[in-house]
């Protein structure tokens, strides 16, 4: 009598909409009720409770794994109504780790054998969702029987389940595959499409194993007018064509037929996708596909527009002309309101970039970046940056332009890609000698731009700009302005680590100016007072600007400021003296000369795997555990520790570290008397030469380290523009400056390891594909003769067509054919080893089409 007072699912839903308790407390009360009811012995009470529970789980995300056993009880009811509720709960909540899963096998078997087709369908649906290896193994005979059922309702569902069974239990292929293939010839459209669907998935997992069925698929492709089946078939063929190129020629024609004939956009799109992805060698087909893409692009429907762009991006790598033809539509799509469309258009536009049009496209994109939303704006910036910097700035000819573009990017209000721009500014500075003057100009413009200082995303750019203006100060037109920009009061908006770089740049500029002042004095004894004035002015500006920082909280900033001030203090007297005494032996003169030397050493780019190339010297034990040593001689080692750290400390060759080290050298040397510092530095270089960048000054292999990071100018003579391309030279007003590029030797190793993993993953699927292949062989036996006849007809036809074609092509074709034969030969040998069968079976793949 319980169920008279039990709340039904409908009551629960209504109650939920009326309740004032709040969702969670209502759910917990309902759950309490369900927990009580589900324990009832009466199955209808139990099933109603379960029904309510699965509602709560589906809609409100309540956990229902605790009711797994109750679901099993409900399923075992003889009533369809209860069974349905039970199976629904099971499909919803069971997973591979559910403990009661073991108990369901017999129930499923019973229902699969039921006379009631709806009960069978419930069991099949359940199996399709929860099937494990054990279930698949135990129930594959039942599924096999159902595949031959006379009721098409059951047969089609059984076909749908087969894939899960194959996936979990590959041995089932031996049993079921024959029936599956037989179903390919059925007249029932529903079953046919179910079977084609299964093969579609099988082909996407392992195309080679489905290759022998190609004639059957081809027949359906030609005959069928059912779009759903055709879409699946196209997917199958695009997979098969990737392993058997000869197929492409055969299917291109019917695919074009479908493309011309159908009005169904989904089928057209599938045809287009198949052609551009798998049949890209077939001119006529590709042309037709591109024409269809253009139709998509001009439609108002955003879906078609998106898919058209998507298809273009698939075609882009092999048929760039298709993209270029639709350039206008692509550019127009950039201002579409749909972010997906915009993104796709952006990718396409980037695919079009060559060295001839890079400036034009970048110009267009920058205009879009200025007016679009932050997300898309940054997407534009990052893709321009990555395309232009690809392969050591391969496509950039005019670096002055590119550097200005980087400066422009920094001024786009939404720009958040400071770090990438920072990296490129420094990278170009090191790699491209000719770009340095422009780089310094742009940097100066960036430094004086007040907008940048306020935007924390752009601070990295400022750090790069300040470094560049210090490092390449010799290209600056007006060092005085540079210094003014570097010591402007608003720099206190910057984080300390960037301010430190600023101060260091000031130091570099100062050294440069003093040096040129002194050397000018040396050469021409008659010093003009205006030069003296200006140098004094410069020193004063620096002093005023840096002075407040000598009390900064950040030690780095403070120390560097003090270094600069100390240097100024020393130099100032000499500057004044100089005017009067003309003393060549002045201390400041020597110090600046030395500092200039230290700074003028050029920094070059470093190969990504430079460290790996440093070979380990003989007798150096790297693997040995030195833990015991510490215990034994800890006392003795302690005083030396600071030294040993510097020895073992691996310096990673990154730009930032180089910069810091450079600065450290400078700061340490200024604090010491000049003579001592220079000797120390020389000693350091002697000892740790391998960590220094080599330059012309010191011999490359002094310490037996391979010279794999040459400075910028070293490679200059080696890398030249291709002299055989006069056109290119004529086109550009100025030839492309030299870009230092280092060989990345590590790449080949990476690819081989990738290949290895690929192979491993292939072996996972191996068992399934092997099973399918052997099943196919057995299957074919009977039909062998008729197939042979049909196929040989096809072959004859094919040969005729090839004969008609021009002789130039025929040679190419032959080559292709040979290739194809070779691949099929491989199959043959594989088969032979696996199945010791008669020789006529072996011929199948050759007679394919």
């Amino acid at each position: 009598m319980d169920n008279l007072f039990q709340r039904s699912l409908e009551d629960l839903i209504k109650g939920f909409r009326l309740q004032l308790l709040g969702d969670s407390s209502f759910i917990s009360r309902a759950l309490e009720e369900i927990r009580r009811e589900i324990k009832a012995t009466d199955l209808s009470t139990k099933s109603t409770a379960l029904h309510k529970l699965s509602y709560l789980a589906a809609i409100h995300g309540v956990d229902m794994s605790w009711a797994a056993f109750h679901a099993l009880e409900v399923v075992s009811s003889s009533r369809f109504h209860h069974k349905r509720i039970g199976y629904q709960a099971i499909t919803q909540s069971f997973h591979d780790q559910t403990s009661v899963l073991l108990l369901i096998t017999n129930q499923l078997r019973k229902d699969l054998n039921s006379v009631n087709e709806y009960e069978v369908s419930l069991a099949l649906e359940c199996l399709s969702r929860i099937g494990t290896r054990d279930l698949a193994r135990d129930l594959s005979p039942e599924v096999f029987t159902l595949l031959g059922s006379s009721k098409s309702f059951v047969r089609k569902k059984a076909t749908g389940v087969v894939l899960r069974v194959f996936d979990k239990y590959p041995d089932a292929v031996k049993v079921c595959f024959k029936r599956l293939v037989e179903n390919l010839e059925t007249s029932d459209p529903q079953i046919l499409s179910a079977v084609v669907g299964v093969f579609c998935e099988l082909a996407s997992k392992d195309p080679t194993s489905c290759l022998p069925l190609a004639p059957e698929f081809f027949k359906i492709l030609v005959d069928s007018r059912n779009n759903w089946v055709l879409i699946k078939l196209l997917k199958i063929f695009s997979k098969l064509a990737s392993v058997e190129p000869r197929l492409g020629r055969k299917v291109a024609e019917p695919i074009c037929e479908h493309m011309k004939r159908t009005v169904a956009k989904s089928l057209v799109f599938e045809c287009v996708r198949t052609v551009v992805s798998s049949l890209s060698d077939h001119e006529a087909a590709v042309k037709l596909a591109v024409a269809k893409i253009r139709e998509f692009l001009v439609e108002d429907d955003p879906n078609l527009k998106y898919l058209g762009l998507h298809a273009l991006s698939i075609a882009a790598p092999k048929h760039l002309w298709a993209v270029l033809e639709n350039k206008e539509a692509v550019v127009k799509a950039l201002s579409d309101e749909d972010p997906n469309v915009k993104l796709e258009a952006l990718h396409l536009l980037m695919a079009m970039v060559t060295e001839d049009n890079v400036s034009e496209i970048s110009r267009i994109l920058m205009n879009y970046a200025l007016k679009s939303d932050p997300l898309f704006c940054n997407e534009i910036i990052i893709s321009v940056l990555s395309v232009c910097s690809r392969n050591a700035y391969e496509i950039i000819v005019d670096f002055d332009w590119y550097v200005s573009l980087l400066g422009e990017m920094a001024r786009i209000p939404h720009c958040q890609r400071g770090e990438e721009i920072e990296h490129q500014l420094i990278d170009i500075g090191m790699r491209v000698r000719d770009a340095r003057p422009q780089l310094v100009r742009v940097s100066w413009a960036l430094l004086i731009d007040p907008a940048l200082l306020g935007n924390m995303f752009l601070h990295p750019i400022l750090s790069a700009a300040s470094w560049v203006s210090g490092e390449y100060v010799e290209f600056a037109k007006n060092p005085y302005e540079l210094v003014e920009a570097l010591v402007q009061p608003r720099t206190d908006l910057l984080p300390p680590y960037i301010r430190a770089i600023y101060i260091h740049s000031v130091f570099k500029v100062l050294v440069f100016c003093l040096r040129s002042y002194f050397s000018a004095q040396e050469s021409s004894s008659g010093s003009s007072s205006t030069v003296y004035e200006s140098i004094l002015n410069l020193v004063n500006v620096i002093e005023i600007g840096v002075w407040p920082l000598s009390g900064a909280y950040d030690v780095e900033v403070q120390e560097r400021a003090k270094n600069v001030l100390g240097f100024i203090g020393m130099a100032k007297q000499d500057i004044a003296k100089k005017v009067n005494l003309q003393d060549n032996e002045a201390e400041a003169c020597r110090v600046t000369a030395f500092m200039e030397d230290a700074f003028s050493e050029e920094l070059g780019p470093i190969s990504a795997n430079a460290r790996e190339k440093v070979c380990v010297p003989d007798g150096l034990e790297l693997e040995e555990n030195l833990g015991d040593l510490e215990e034994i001689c800890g006392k003795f080692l302690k005083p030396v520790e600071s030294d040993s750290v510097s020895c073992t400390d691996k310096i990673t060759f990154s730009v930032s570290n180089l910069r810091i080290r450079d600065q450290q050298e400078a700061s340490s040397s200024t604090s010491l008397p000049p003579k001592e510092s220079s000797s120390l530095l020389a000693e350091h270089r002697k000892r740790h030469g391998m960590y220094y960048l080599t330059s012309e000054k010191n011999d490359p292999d002094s310490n037996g380290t391979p010279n794999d990071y040459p400075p910028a100018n070293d490679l200059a003579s080696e890398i030249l523009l291709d002299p055989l391309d006069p056109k290119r030279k004529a086109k550009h007003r100025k030839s492309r400056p030299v870009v230092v590029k280092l060989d990345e030797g590590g790449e080949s190793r990476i690819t081989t390891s990738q290949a290895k993993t690929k192979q491993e993953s292939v072996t996972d699927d191996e068992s399934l594909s092997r099973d399918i292949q052997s099943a196919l062989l057995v299957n074919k036996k009977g039909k062998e003769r008729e197939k042979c006849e049909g196929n040989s007809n096809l072959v004859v036809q094919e040969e005729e067509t090839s004969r008609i074609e021009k002789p130039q092509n025929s040679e190419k074709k032959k080559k292709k054919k040979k290739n194809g034969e070779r691949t099929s030969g491989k199959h043959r040998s594989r088969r032979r080893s696996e199945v010791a069968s008669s020789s006529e079976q072996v011929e199948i793949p050759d007679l394919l089409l």
Partner: protein
Amino acid sequence: MSFDPMDRLMSLCVPSLNLRMHRSLIDSLEIQSCYLLSEHSCLASGFGSIHFVLLVSRQGKVRLTKWYSPYTQKERSKVIRELSGVILNRGPKLCNFVEWRGYKVVYKRYASLYFCMCIDAEDNELEVLEIIHHYVEILDRYFGSVCELDLIFNFHKAYYILDELLIAGEIQESSKKTVARIISAQDEMVEAAKEEAGSISYIIAQAS
């Protein structure tokens, strides 16, 4: 501040009234022609390899979920939260596809309900849109100009219909008529069983 239960009910009913004014979920969108306007009036079954189906109302309430790939309960709620955030915020004139975690989610709005299906990146988006439309048409036929309320109160029936349409994430039945026939046959079986269970003789047999 006092709550009048009637107020609340009315306010909850408003969207459904709206729906009734639309007459059906389908009406408003029938005009947007199908991508699969084929020579064959009925769709055939295929292999959608759909990972899950979601029905979410415009207010972000979940109306139906069906998972064809294994997800834990936690993942499920996360997916729902993420996706409804993305999809409900998209404007009306944008395309019906969303790229999401390397998959594609195809969605379509019918009146106040969003129907979403998740597929692999290389699957045919237009085909899935067609499946969604197909499902809505079947629902419409079954309930007689379906509205959101129908799906709320007959949540299980929407499930059963979906089960007839898709199996293991593939579309299995394309004929609307066939689905309708199968569902009504099953309904009849259930009704017959219920009548039997409700009869006095059965109750007496149970009690004794």
